[in-house]
Structure formats: structure tokens, C-alpha cells
């Protein structure tokens, strides 16, 4: 009789174990709120107009105004360049990971999917990344640009927080879409011959 009771208790406990681990607890954990990082940046151009051969500076201060971000990215892209070469130099950089240089034709993530959806780069860019980034911590990414042709020189800047759990997990929230189908802020400098 005792043996029967022990077996019965064992099976009941196992039943409860499977129910809890497969159905009850997963349901509860999935109801928990996900972290929502809110990246933001302010970029300042040193000049709006320069003479060919001169340089200008773009200073970017980014911050995560939301929850803890697993990854905080600031991307700076150059739609008028074919290669970054000596045109762009990094002046200040305090992100936790080394900058990543992306060339034309490279496979890159798109639509804020973090690499799940991909596309191919149509112009070069530099990605700055901090893994992780707590709330309200500022990061700096300053570049010096020496354009090698005259005309309008455009720079696309954007910031993304991962997990990309909300529409505020990227900045800017609207505007021009880049080759990754993600919103960018455009900074332009006129280069006179």
C-alpha cells in the first residue's frame, strides 16, 4: 500500500512538473514585459560648406534613454562614396566594440531585424556598437571627413537598440529610408571646387 502511494505521489509530482515547465511557467514568462531600449543621438556638423581639399567634422553623441540594451548601434553611412579609404577618419570613439567597416556588396541586416532579414550594402558605412548599453549612458562617435569630389556630400546617421522591441527602439522614427530600409537622418555639406 505504501509502495502504491509513493508511486502515485511520484506520478502526480511528475505530471505537475511537466504541466508547470511546459505550459504554466512559459505562459507566465512570455507575459513579462520585454526590455525597450530607446536610442537617441545628436549630431553636430562643424561646417555646412567647405572648399574641396578641406575637412569637416561630424560629432555624434548617442544615448540610450530606454531600458537596458543588449546592443546599441550607431551607423554612419556615406551614400556618395564608393570606398571609405582616407576620406573618413574616426576622431573620437568610446563604444565597447571596435568599429565595423561595411563595404558595397556586403550582406547586411535590414528592416531592424538584426540580421534575420538581409540585403546587400549599396554604399559604404561604419557601424559603432556597444554591447550592452545601460540606460542614460552617453557614447561618442566623431568623424573627420575630407571629401575628394565637389558637390553635396551626404552622411546618413541612425541609431538602433537591440532588442528592437518597439517603434522607439530606433532613431530617427521617420524620414528617409536607407538601403537597409531603416530611417536615417541626413547631414549634408556643400563642397565647393
Amino acid at each position, binding site marked *: 500500500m505504501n509502495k502504491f502511494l509513493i508511486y502515485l505521489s*511520484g506520478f502526480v509530482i511528475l505530471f505537475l512538473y511537466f504541466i508547470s515547465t*511546459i505550459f504554466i511557467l*512559459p505562459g507566465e514568462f*512570455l507575459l513579462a514585459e520585454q526590455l525597450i531600449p530607446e536610442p537617441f543621438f545628436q549630431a553636430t556638423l562643424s561646417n555646412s560648406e567647405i572648399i574641396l581639399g578641406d575637412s569637416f567634422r561630424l560629432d555624434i553623441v548617442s544615448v540610450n534613454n530606454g531600458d*537596458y540594451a*543588449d546592443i546599441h548601434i550607431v551607423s554612419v553611412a556615406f551614400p556618395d562614396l564608393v570606398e571609405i579609404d582616407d576620406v573618413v577618419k574616426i576622431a573620437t570613439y568610446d563604444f565597447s566594440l571596435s568599429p565595423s567597416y561595411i563595404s558595397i556588396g556586403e550582406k547586411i541586416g535590414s528592416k531592424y531585424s538584426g540580421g534575420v532579414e538581409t540585403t546587400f550594402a549599396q554604399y559604404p558605412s561604419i557601424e559603432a556598437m556597444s554591447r*550592452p548599453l545601460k540606460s542614460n549612458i552617453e557614447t561618442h562617435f566623431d568623424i573627420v571627413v575630407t571629401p575628394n569630389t565637389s558637390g553635396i556630400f551626404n552622411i546618413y546617421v541612425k541609431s538602433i537598440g*537591440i532588442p528592437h522591441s518597439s517603434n522607439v527602439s530606433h532613431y530617427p522614427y521617420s524620414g528617409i529610408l536607407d538601403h537597409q530600409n531603416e530611417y536615417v537622418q541626413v547631414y549634408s555639406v556643400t563642397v565647393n571646387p
Partner: protein
Amino acid sequence: MTNLTSNLTENFLKTRSEIIFLVGSILTSFGILLVTVGGSWDITNHLLSNPETFFSPPHALMYSGVAISLTGVVLSFIGWKNLQKSSDSYFLSLKIQLIGIGLLTGAGPLDFIWHSYFGLDGLLSPPHFTLIIGMFLCSIGGMIGISRYLKFNNSEPVLKYLLILAVIPVWLSASGIISSLSLPFSSTDFFEFNPEPTIAFIIASLAYPFLISLSLTLIFKLSNYQFGFMSILGGLFLLIYSSTAIIPNFAMFDTIQFYSLNLIPFIVADIFLKLNRSKFSMFFIGGLMGSVFYMVYYPYVMYTYNEILLGKLVSPSLIYFVYFELIQTVMLFTLIPAIIMGVLGVIFSEKFAKRILMN
């Protein structure tokens, strides 16, 4: 009188050499335990991208483990060399330990050369795989040495607890082999060593259940059906995994309560086998152990299944969301094969235990 003195001396030398061999085997197993714990912690650090230098705590643990294992193999060799009539019984253990430590220490320079040519490597690379195989062989050698010593010498019952130290590194290092063949952590700029998702899915679904069942029923047999050993071994495994893979990631801290529930099947298995250890009962326990593999290998096993079932981006704070999103689908696909592999684990452990104990 001379014969008596000679016999006494011979016995004394034999006992002393056997103890040296035992200490060597213990150190080999303990060293590998440290390497596996350090390795699991290191994987978590890499996933969290914690700023890391060579002198990080997980690396310190791993290299200390290698040094301890090396000392253990040397001691085992010294002990074995001085054994006379019974040296054959310990040769298999020594041979496996020697091959293992050769691979383990050889993997260091190989890793250095690999890094020099190809930069950072992923979880699966030729040097890493050499290292893991070396760890596995060392732990097998240590386990055979400890088990045979305990069998040949009617030691104090408390010494039987050494079997836990003998089996846990085998379980952890074999888990390392399965993980490196199934987790998608091996893509680098130079090489794409990530396993093909479907093959990874099959490997994880079959090998993890087999391993859990094999490890737990093996200790049950090696300990001569001692009550409580399965629970202690399973509990220790959960403790190591939770402290190296869950606690370091603050986003997963709350899931500790979920993970600790996994002690239940180990305890129930122990109780059931205390009441009845017939073949049917053993097979039931094997199936039970196999069926809980997705829960026991929380959280990283999720990456393998995510590749093929969801394909979501998993950043550290999303690990448990994706894990729990997948749990029912994974159970649906894997439950039956996992139970079958658990039963196979029991059959294999029977043969393995006989071979280890030379029955």
C-alpha cells in the same frame, strides 16, 4: 619470515601505488570539471559580450583545470608504473588519460596558431574540437580509474561519493561535444563551421537525451544502485549550468525558479529505482530522463531549435522569451525520439558499467 616480509612490502607498495593512481585520477577528473565549468562560463561571457581580457575568471578556471589534470595524469602514470600484478587493471584508464591530456595540451598551441592565422574562432573549430575531445577522454580515463579503484578496494562507503566527481566531468564534456556540433556559434569571417540547422536539430534531439539517461543510470550502476546518487549528480549538473549560464545574465535571473524545478525528475527517478530496479523500471527512468532534455539544457539548447523553427534574432535579454516560445513545439517534435534515446542510454550504460567494472 623472509617471504612474509616480502609479501608485506609488496602489499604496502601496491596499496601506496594504487592510492597514488587514485589521487591522479581524482585530479584528472577534478581538473576537467574546472575546465568544463570555466568553458560554460566563458560561452556566457562571450554571448553577453562582457569586456574580456585573457586574464578573465573563466579563463583562469580553465587553465587551472588543465594544469590540475596534467598533474593528475602524471601522478596516475607514477602510480601505475609502480603497480605490479594489478597494473593491467588500471592500464585502460591510464591509456585514455594519456591520449586525452596529449590532445588537451596540444590544443593550446594549435589554438594559438589558429588565432594567429584566422583571428577569433567560434565554438567549433579544429583546435576547440581537439580540446573538447581531449577533455572528454581525460574525464573518461579518470572515471574508469576511480571506479576501478573503488571496486578493487573495499573502501569506506563515503569514498563512493567520488563517483560523482568521476561522472560529472564526463557528462559536462560530452555535453560540450554535442553543443559544439549543434549550436550555431561557429560562424567566423574565415570559416562557416555552423552545423547545418536540420542536422543540428537531429543531433541535439538524439544526443542530449541519450547523454542524460546514460550519465544518470551509469552512476546508479557504478555506485552499486546507491540511493541518492542520481539526484546529487543531476542536482550538481543543474547547479553548474545555472551558475554559469543563467545567473551571469541578469535578464534571465528570474527563470532560476523554472530551472530548479528540473531537480524533480531526478529525485523521482531515485525514489522509483529505490522501490524497483527491474529492467522495465530502468527503461521508464531512462525515457523520463531523455524526455526532460530541453528543460535540463536550458537556455542554450534553444539556439539550435530557433535556427530551424523560428529563425528569430536572439539577443541576451530575449533568450528566455524565445526559449519559452519554442518549448511546446520542441516537445511535440522531440518527445518520442528523446524517450527512445533515453531507453537506449540505459542499455548502453549497462554495457559501459560492465566494461568499466570488468564484470
